[in-house]
């Protein structure tokens, strides 16, 4: 399986993602933001970081970069596009995913382990993961997901909520909401479930010496279901 990680100026989780994808068997290549097209890929990843310094608004300038047209075309043709953290922010800026990501409720950057509940397994990203709750890691300042009531109803009706913040037992209530996200949303799909944006970083949880190993489950499933 071939994957491509897009590097924007200011991306800083690009290498981590490259390491993770290769570890689980992807043939990964790095693609520069100023390139016109993306080499043939089965998966495109927009990594975390501070693309273009996150000046103006997180992800907004990257959402207008040269490479992004190819990403949109690829997504619209049904290709798998995964955006992590800043990548999620970019996906909302391009309109590929609904809603926005605001500054965290308590106005601080948060770096810590969290639990997320898988809300929909009828997609390639979570299909064969046996667990219902994953322990992942967040590191962001703008992860407070928000959308209009109409949009919320629509993403709920279409099963577009991918993961929600919860405790280790899967309670996704307000007590387990690290950043103020509406309905504890940590990640969402587009209608067709080929695009996933989420704040947690599975690439930081891929070996027992790191913060945990549940990221491995994510990547193992992903390559296995493609």
């Amino acid at each position, binding site marked *: 399986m071939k994957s491509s990680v897009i590097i924007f100026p*200011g991306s800083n989780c690009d290498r981590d993602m490259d390491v993770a994808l290769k570890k689980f068997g992807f043939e990964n290549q790095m693609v520069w933001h100023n390139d016109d097209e993306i080499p043939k890929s089965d998966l495109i990843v927009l990594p975390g970081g501070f693309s273009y310094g996150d000046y103006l608004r997180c992800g907004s300038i990257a959402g207008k970069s040269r490479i992004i047209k190819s990403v949109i075309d690829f997504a619209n043709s049904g290709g798998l596009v995964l955006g992590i953290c800043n990548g999620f922010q970019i996906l909302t800026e391009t309109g590929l995913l609904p809603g926005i990501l605001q500054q965290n409720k308590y106005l601080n950057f948060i*770096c810590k382990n969290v639990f997320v509940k898988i809300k929909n397994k009828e997609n390639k990203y979570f299909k064969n993961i046996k667990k219902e709750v994953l322990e992942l890691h967040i590191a962001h300042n703008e992860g407070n997901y928000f959308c209009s009531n109409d949009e919320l109803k629509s993403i709920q009706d279409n099963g577009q909520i991918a993961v929600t913040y919860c405790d280790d037992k899967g309670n996704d209530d307000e007590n387990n909401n690290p950043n103020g996200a509406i309905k504890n949303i940590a990640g969402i799909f587009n209608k067709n479930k080929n695009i996933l944006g989420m704040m947690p970083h599975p690439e930081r949880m891929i070996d027992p010496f790191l913060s945990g190993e549940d990221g491995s489950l994510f990547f193992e499933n992903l390559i296995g279901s493609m």
Partner: protein
Amino acid sequence: MSDVNEQIAIDHGLKKDEYKKICDLLKRTPNITELGVFSAMWNEHCSYKSSRRHLKKLHTKGDQVIQGPGENAGVVDIEDDDAIVFKIESHNHPSFIEPYQGAATGVGGIMRDVFTMGARPIANLNSIHFGSIDHEKTRNLLRGVVKGIGGYGNCIGVPTIAGQTCFDESYNGNILVNAMTLGLVNKNKIFYSKAAGVDKPVIYVGSKTGRDGIHGASMASAIFDDKIEEKKPTVQVGDPFTEKLLLEACLELMAGKSIISIQDMGAAGLTSSSIEMASKGDLGIEIDLTKVPCREENMTPYEIMLSESQERMLIVLEAGKENEAKKIFDKWNLDFAVIGKTTNSKNIELFFENKKVAEIPIDFLAENAPMYDRKWTKAKLPKENRFSKDAFKSLKLNECLNNILTDPNIADKKWIWDQYDHTVMGDTIQKPGGNAGVVRVHGTNKAVAAAVDSSATYCNAHPLTGGKQVVCESWRNMISVGAKPIAITNCLNFGNPEKDKNMGEFVECVEGITEASKYLNYPVVSGNVSFYNETNDKSIKPTPSIGGIGLLSDYKKMVTMDLKNNGNFLLVIGKTVGHLDQSIFAKNILSNHNGPPPEINLFNEKQNGMCILNLNNKNLIETCHDVSLGGILTAVSKMSIKGNKGVKLFPIKGLVNKFEYFFGEDQGRYIIEIKPENSENVENILKKDSIHFDKLGIIESDQITYSDDLKVSIDDIKDGYKKWLKDYMVN
């Protein structure tokens, strides 16, 4: 154009006799640009004029040392082709005036020092000191500094893996922000600042030059008074995004062979970077200031030379490689300008709009810079306290423990490090909050441990002992995670060197650091000095911060401090005599601030440390934590809280005073957890090596108990310990 006089020189921070020396050297009056250059190069921050003589004594050699002090950062060998480039630096004065930008640019500056040498930064650390928790400014300063450190480091994508935060009223008017960075480099591809060869192009890269930070280096050498807010415009403004681009562009250029020398524009900006490169290469340098990319209009040569705009580098390239280099900086959207060349004149010559605006022999600025042998007084060892039995009569162990665990200097600092990205780069295997942060050397079985320590209370009580103690504490932190201690970097924060007492504190702390680092073969390879940490005649306590690094050849042997399994035993390694003077117990419970700090026995220190490493290599240690502030009971409590396990403490043989035993701050001690089946083997090894140890207790239940004297549940002590800082910051 020359209308410089003595008063203008004094306004630039120069002394009368220094100004006279400048005129004598030049055999004329300098013009304003030249005066600006002299004042920048001759101030304490750049010239080390008060400290140089004493810094020469530091122990800086060792088989592991590739580059000692004198470069942008120190470099040590970590086996194979790998080397670690590291340094700590202060950004105290700017952080007090403007905490966010001051701290942020401190982090940015130290990272540039490291990647200038060709290394990719792999970890950041910091040591931050604030005034009393009751002081009106403390909360805002702490909040601003933490946000600034996070704002910069998080954006660059380098994990902040460890640090320390202290509170003491002596920092009410002068906070300390010391930032440290570690970078990884191939030891055959290290870049230095020494220029070589004549007629080589001098290149300016990075951000444009603005009017920010003019005289920043002079400010760092000034004493504060009530008008300090007026200095706000001299604080530099950071742009971590540009720094990230600069980092990637420089590393890309360094992969080729076109760089002769490279130097970041830090304190005193273009002035010090150009002069240092030329001085080290014994060359002259010619710069056309018209070609410097400026972000503001009508900047004068004086302003361009003294600007401390951030995220800029100066490079001497091989002739003919300009286009190749420019392509890389174009790709990263950074300014690139050929602004001059190296010459054989041994002068710095500055041109502006086709006119020569300054010419100074480099010697005058570097080697001929003033050096002072300041007067200093030796500190006496204070007399020991003799606490009467009555002093302890009404005390309860659990109350004392709760008091200490919620002391601002002990309480959990999670509120801080949750705001630092400590996991980016995917190699952080020990997070903040342990004995040391540990990151893997990417793609290998090795890992590097790092920690920052300071002990201002001890240094204040007796600088010589305090200096030794900080080095030992750093060494212990390395040992506690299973790493072999390799080398240190020091950030020497002191008061006014023109006062005998403050100068004495500096001299004796340096002496203590030297003695300990020599004995432990733990050399100093980089660092900086920050004097004049004084407001309205009140100076800070002497605060040398020591940043240590250690190597784990096999990261799987890393040790943590959280208790692991019920039924395992705890041992205290090292002798406990119960030294309470200068301890947190004496201060908080007995309200006593007198007496000597605990004594340092370097022989025992080394023996105990080496023995722990030996036990760990034999896989006999489950957990390890060094005993420091707050003594044994504080250490055990932290281990219990982290591992969520209780401990039954055994009765101590020949115990005279349980408070002395449990809260005394004797040095050179560790607590280790061992499995019962290894117990005999461990004890035999300890006896064979003549290492003193006490059997401290056994892991069981969810309480810490000591006969009938102590019974506290982990949940209870955890609550206070974990919540203190958050409650303080949120209220």
